[in-house]
C-alpha cells in the first residue's frame, strides 16, 4: 500500500490501486478539505473515472438491448443532466517576472466551456491535417505553416478576450483566423487559392484577414510593431479594447520587437505581447538562437509570465490575467506560451532533421492539448466518450465539406487580377506584361 511514505503520514494520504483501471489513486481528503484529482468512491474500491465508465457501459448495454428489442420506450440510464456542470482544476503555476502575483492556479471550467474548447481545438486539428493532405496532393501550393499541436494557445487566448478586441500574428495563422471568426470553408478555399477564399484567393496561407484580425503576416517580426500600433489606436479612441500581438521564439530576436517593447512601455499601450515558444525557429532550436531563452523576461521593463501552452486552461487563465492587467491601464505585458508543433516549420520541412521522432511522439502522448482536455472532462464526469466521439464526427464532416468546397470552387476570375490595389479609389489602368496589355483596376 504505502511505498515511500513514512508511517506518520495520515491515513487519507495513502495511495492504493483502483480495481477497475488499476491506476494509483489517493483516498478522499478529510472533511472540510478540497479534493484534488482522482477523488475516490468508497464503493468497491473504484475511482470516480472508473465508476463513470462502468455506469456508461451499463447504460450502453441497456440502450442496445432496447434497440434490439424494438422497444418503444427509450431506456437510457444516462442523460446529459447526469454530467457535472462545472469542475475545479489545479493548473501549473506560471513563472512570473516583475509581477507580485501571477495567474490563478485553481480554475473553474464548465461543461459547456469544455465542450466548446474541445470542438474548436478538434476543428483546428482536423483542418490542419486536411491542409497537410491537400498540400501533398499539390492542391495547396507555396507556403503552408501548420499549427497542429499548438491549438491550446489560440483557443485559450480567445476564451479570455472578446471579439471586439484585436489580434495579430505571424504566418502560422490558420488557427487564429478560425478563432477570430473565419469559417473553415473560407480558410481552406483561401489555401487552395479559390474565389471563395477569405481573401478571394489573393492572399494565400499567410495573408488571411477578418474583423479585428490583422493577419497573417509573412515578414518575421513585422507584425509586432503593427500590433502595438493597433493598441495605440485602441488607447487613442478610448474604447477599452486591447491588442494581442503574437510572435514566435525565432522572431523574438528581431530588433524591431525591442523597439516596440520600448515604445509600448513608454506610452503604456494596451498590448499583450505573446511569444509562442515551440522550441524551434524553423530548424534552429532555441538554445542555438538565443543568448537567453527566458522569452518572458526579454521585455526587460515589461512584466512577464511563462505559461504551459499545451494546457488550454493555463493559457486561458494567463490570458485573463494579462487582459485585466492591460485594461487597467498599466501598459503592456508579455506572455511566453511553451508549446509544440507536430509538423515541421512548413510543409517543405519534414521536421525531423533537427529533432527526433521520439521527441515528437513523446509530446503527442504526454502533452497533447486535445487529449489533456478530453481526459479532464471524462475523469470529472463532464462528458461521455460517445458525446466527444459525436463531436469528432461532426467536425470531420465539416472539414470534409470545406475541403470539398475548397477543391471545387473556381479560381478567381482573371478580371480580378489588378483589383484591390487601392481602397476607395477611382478605377485606374494597370500595365500588363507588355505595352499593349492595358488592364483595369477597381477598388
Amino acid at each position, binding site marked *: 500500500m504505502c511505498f515511500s511514505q513514512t508511517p506518520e503520514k495520515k491515513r487519507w494520504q495513502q495511495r492504493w490501486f483502483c480495481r477497475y483501471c488499476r491506476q494509483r489513486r489517493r483516498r478522499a481528503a478529510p472533511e472540510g478539505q478540497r479534493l484534488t484529482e482522482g477523488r475516490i468512491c468508497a464503493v468497491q474500491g473504484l475511482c470516480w473515472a472508473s465508476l463513470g465508465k462502468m455506469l456508461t457501459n451499463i447504460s450502453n448495454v441497456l440502450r442496445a438491448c432496447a434497440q434490439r428489442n424494438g422497444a418503444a420506450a427509450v431506456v437510457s440510464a444516462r442523460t446529459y443532466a447526469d454530467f457535472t456542470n462545472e469542475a475545479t482544476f489545479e493548473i501549473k503555476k506560471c513563472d512570473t517576472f516583475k509581477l507580485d502575483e501571477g495567474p490563478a492556479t485553481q480554475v473553474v471550467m464548465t461543461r459547456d466551456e469544455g465542450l466548446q474548447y474541445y470542438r474548436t481545438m478538434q476543428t483546428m486539428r482536423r483542418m490542419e491535417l486536411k491542409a497537410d493532405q491537400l498540400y501533398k496532393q499539390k492542391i495547396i501550393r507555396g507556403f503552408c505553416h501548420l499549427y497542429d499541436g499548438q491549438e491550446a494557445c489560440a483557443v485559450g487566448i480567445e476564451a479570455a478576450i472578446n471579439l471586439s478586441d*484585436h489580434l*495579430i500574428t505571424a504566418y502560422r495563422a490558420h488557427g487564429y483566423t478560425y478563432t477570430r471568426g473565419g469559417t473553415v470553408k473560407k480558410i481552406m478555399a483561401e489555401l487552395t487559392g479559390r474565389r471563395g477564399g477569405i*481573401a*478571394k*484567393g*489573393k*492572399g494565400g496561407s499567410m*495573408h488571411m*484577414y*477578418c474583423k479585428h484580425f*490583422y*493577419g497573417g*503576416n*509573412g*515578414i518575421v517580426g*513585422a507584425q*509586432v*510593431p*503593427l*500590433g*502595438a*500600433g*493597433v*493598441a*495605440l*489606436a*485602441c488607447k*487613442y*479612441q478610448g474604447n477599452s479594447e486591447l*491588442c494581442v500581438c503574437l510572435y514566435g521564439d525565432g522572431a523574438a530576436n528581431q*530588433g*524591431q520587437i525591442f*523597439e*516596440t517593447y*520600448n*515604445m509600448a512601455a*513608454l*506610452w503604456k499601450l494596451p498590448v499583450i505581447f505573446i511569444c509562442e515558444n515551440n522550441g524551434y525557429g524553423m530548424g534552429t532550436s532555441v538554445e542555438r538562437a538565443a543568448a537567453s531563452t527566458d522569452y518572458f523576461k526579454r521585455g526587460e521593463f515589461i512584466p512577464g509570465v511563462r505559461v504551459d501552452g499545451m494546457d488550454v486552461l493555463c493559457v486561458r487563465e494567463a490570458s485573463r490575467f494579462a487582459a485585466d492587467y492591460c485594461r487597467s491601464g498599466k501598459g503592456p505585458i508579455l506572455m511566453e506560451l511553451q508549446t509544440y508543433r507536430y509538423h515541421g516549420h512548413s510543409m517543405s520541412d519534414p521536421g525531423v532533421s533537427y529533432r527526433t521522432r521520439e521527441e515528437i511522439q513523446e509530446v503527442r502522448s504526454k502533452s497533447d492539448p486535445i487529449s489533456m482536455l478530453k481526459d479532464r472532462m471524462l475523469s470529472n464526469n463532464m462528458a461521455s466518450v460517445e458525446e466527444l466521439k459525436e463531436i469528432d464526427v461532426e467536425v470531420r464532416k465539416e472539414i470534409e465539406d470545406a475541403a470539398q468546397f475548397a477543391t471545387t470552387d473556381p479560381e478567381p476570375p482573371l478580371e480580378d487580377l489588378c*483589383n*484591390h*490595389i*487601392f*481602397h*476607395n*479609389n477611382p478605377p*485606374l489602368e*494597370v500595365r500588363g506584361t507588355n*505595352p499593349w496589355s492595358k488592364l483595369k483596376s477597381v*477598388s
Partner: protein
Amino acid sequence: NEQKGQKTPATVTVRDALNQAMDEELERDERVFLLGEEVAQYDGAYKVSRGLWKKYGDKRIIDTPISEMGFAGIAVGAAMAGLRPICEFMTFNFSMQAIDQVINSAAKTCYMSAGLQAVPIVFRGPNGASAGVAAQHSQCFAAWYAHCPGLKVVSPWNSEDAKGLLKSSIRDDNPVVFLENELLYGVPFEMSEEAQSKDFTIPIGKAKVERAGSHITLVSHSRYVGHCLDAAAVLAKEGIECEVINLRTIRPMDVESIEASVMKTNHLVTVEGGWPQFGVGAEICARIMEGSAFNYLDSPVTRVTGVDIPMPYAKILEDHSLPQIKDIIFSVKKTLNV
C-alpha cells in the same frame, strides 16, 4: 498661417504651407495624428510641425524614440485599426530602416486582403540632396518607392503643391509617400486666394504645366522644377520656348500630360536630382517610347540626372554632382541640335 482667411494672394514658404496643411487636416479629422522624431516639443527637426504640439497636445503629436522600423510599423498598425497617421521620417534616408513596413505592411496589404484591410497612412519627410550632408543623407528615394504597386508617391515643388498635395495625401485612404525637399522649406512662393482656403486640395496623379512653350518639353519634379523654369527664362532670351511640366505625382505618373506636350513640341528632356539608372527619367523614356507620343519625337529623349556616385561632401564636388541650370540649358540645346 497668419494669412488664412484673407482674400489676397500671399507669399508663403513651403514650410508654412506644409504646416498649414497639417494643421487644417488635424482640425478637420479627429483620427489624423502626427508621429516622428522631434515633431512635438522640438517643433520639428526642420520646424515643419512648429506650433502643432502646443495646439493639439501629446495625444495627436507624438515624439518617438529613434526607432524607425518600430514607429513606422506602429503607424501602419494604427492606420489598419482606423486612425489616419502622418508618419514623419526625419529624412527619407532613415526610411530605409523601415522600408519593410512601408512596402510589405502598408503598400501590399489592401491587395493581399482583397480590399478588406485599408491602410490610410502618409509617410512624409525631406528627400534627396540637401547642402553638405554627404553621401548617407542625400539619397533620392523617388524611384525606389515609385517602383512599388500599392503606393502613391508624391513630390511637390512650390507652396501650393505642398499644401494641396499634403491635404490630398492625408485624405487619401491609401499609403502615400510624400517626398519633400529640405532646400525648398525656406523658399517663399505666391499662393493664390484659392490655395489659402481650408478645402484647397490638389488631385494626386495630375501634373501641371508651369510654363507653356512650343519648342521643347522639360519634365521635372520637386526642386528641379525651379531649375527648369530658370533655364527656360535664359533660353527664352535666345528664342527657345520651353514648356515646363511639374510632375507633382511620381506614382501614378501623369503620362498623358507629358504625351500631350510632346505631341506639341516634339522634343523632351527630363530633369531630376536622383541617380540615372532605373530612375524617374528612365521610366518617362520607356513610357513615351511605348505610347503614341513616340511618333512625334524629332530626337531621342534626354535625361538630366544626378551624377551616378554617392554624394561627396566638398562644396565644389557636391555642386557638380547635381544638375545645374547650365546642364539643363546644354541638354536642351543638344536635344534641339542648336
